[in-house]
């Protein structure tokens, strides 16, 4: 059974806006990170889907997806390391409480 391309795009759009919404509204660093991952993966889905449906003979879109996953993994590692350090110093990872460096 063939799934229509629209279904994929709806999914990625929902994920994208869920990510944007979460990024704006959450005050918890971990939740913000998750939102960023959501947006990233929404684009990954778009890459894979457009490659699969528009240019079936080539693999560039898939490669970009793989790059995206690798980069998001690295980014997550850095972000979590920062969060742990912030937690050690502030005992909290709510963005509202991290204001020591503010001028």
């Amino acid at each position, binding site marked *: 059974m063939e799934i229509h391309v629209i279904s994929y795009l709806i999914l990625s759009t929902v994920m994208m806006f869920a990510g944007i919404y979460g990024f*704006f509204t959450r005050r918890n660093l971990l939740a913000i990170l998750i939102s960023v991952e959501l947006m990233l993966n929404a684009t990954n889905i778009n890459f894979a889907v457009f490659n699969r449906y528009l240019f079936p003979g080539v693999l560039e879109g898939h490669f970009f997806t793989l790059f995206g996953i690798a980069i998001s993994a690295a980014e997550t590692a850095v972000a979590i390391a920062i969060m742990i350090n912030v937690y050690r110093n502030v005992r909290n990872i709510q*963005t509202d409480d991290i204001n020591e460096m*503010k001028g």
Partner: protein
Amino acid sequence: MEYTILILLLPVLSFLVLALAGMKMSHRVAGLIGTLSLCAVTVVSYLTAYAYFAMPRQADGTFAQLMPYNFEWLPFTDALHIDMGILLDPISVMMLVVISTVSFMVHIYSFGYMKGERGFQRYYAFLSLFTFSMLGLVVATNIFQMYVFWELVGVSSYLLIGFYYTKPEAIAASKKAFIVTRFADLGFLIGILIYGYYMGTFTFDPAQEDLMQGALMLPWALGLMFVGGAGKSAMFPLHIWLPDAMEGPTPVSALIHAATMVVAGVYQVARLFPLYIAYAPETLHIVAYVGAFTAFYAASVACVQSDIKRVLAFSTISQIGFMMVALGVCTGMPSHEGGLGYMASMFHLFTHAMFKALLFLGAGCIIHAVHSNEMSAMGGLRKYMPVTHITFLIACLAISGIPPFSGFFSKDEILTACFAFSPVMGWVMTVIAGMTAFYMFRLYYGIFWGTENKALHAAHTPHESPLTMTFPLMVLAAVTCVAGFIPFGHFVTGDGLSYDIHLDSTVALTSCVVAVVAIALATFIYVRDRQPVADALARRFPRLHEAAYRRFYMDEAWLFVTKRIIFRMVSTPLAWFDRHVVDGFMNFLAWATNASAEEVQPMQSGRIQAYTVWFLCGIIVLTLLLML
């Protein structure tokens, strides 16, 4: 003549050494550095003068104009550039001799006079600076270099008048001198600019076609330059700073305010003399009238002053008036008749520098002895200070025009030139020469004869000054005795040609008789212990006496013009405009920037999420714009 650069280098080096390291030296070392460098400058100047005048004359009978150095300093266009260099011609070489001699004497004299003063090293540093500036002024190769050094002498004069900077009068006097001369120099600068604009050059000899084209503007340029010269040379009504400048140390008055700086205006006119005579004879005659009036005014004020340095100051003003008159009465007549005044003026400048420096240095000895400038503290000093007495008497005879002292010869030439110009001018100047003799002998009798101030002298017996102070007096007195016999006409003349000075017997006899009568009158009035005639005259004409004593209210007139008219009518509204309109606009700009900053400041919250919201809004707006 490449060694002439030493004349400028040595004083500036000694100034730098004394100014930078002077405070670490002892008084003796600092003074020796200044004096030795000046000694070297004097030797080099004499060598230069000897070598210059020993040169063979050119084919047309004049001395060549030499420029050992002349480098381009500020180029504006190909033709118009400011140069710095050294120009040697008869008058600049003559001035080198005058300045270095007087300056050297003053350096020696200051050893005794300034002994133990605080700031002794600073004093010598300023003296070196002044000497450098004055020498640079006379060897200037163009009008702009002259102006640069002109301002430098103004600064050194300011520094030296205000040497006793803890004394309020000295501060006020130094400011007055600086502001008045600076105000006059505004005219000089405008004159230079007009000159540069129309002549296309700053040198003293513009191209013939430029002269033809700019001939209409040249009198204005020269007249404006003369305003600057009148300020420096204390011509009426810009003379008000010179009497006050006597607040400075007396050797400084001798050097700057008697012998060298104050004749800068005369030198300036003499330097531009060929242009005056060819293109602006009317301006030259204005110079003569200004000089004559100043000479008369200053002589009449000098007759009643009681401060000996003030008397000498007014006498200086009067004598500079004589030099200006001599230059001003020159005409374009051929041979030596038209240019006689030029020679006479330079001759008088030379002799006056010597005997007036001698008078001031003598006055310094007297002030040193009685610790006061007022004649009331003096009287009967001749038995305490024989050397000062004799040298002072020689200088008084010289300035009065008694032969065979130098002043007689130069003054006689001036009077001859005046009579050649117009008999009225000649008689007026003769009368002023008589007044000169009268007030100088009034001064002389007041100091050395008359009643002794016993009360003052009992507490502190006056004594002759040390050799460092009397030696310069003797040297200058010797020069004053013999300078009249210098064949000046062989060195400096209006057209550059050599000729023998011959005394006009009528003029010489008249001026001698007038001088002798004036001296006799002064003797009759002032030689005795009490002075019934002088007191009676003062009582008979109280208004006149008071007015002359207060210098005919010239200072008050200037204060009225500046304070009442300029300050109130011009400066105050301008200040209001500046404070309210100009400053107000600037304040408004600052306030508006500040206020808008206050408004946008909350946007810089530091919360990334807030920024991203704005970012998203921006994207949405852009997207909508693109879609439309």
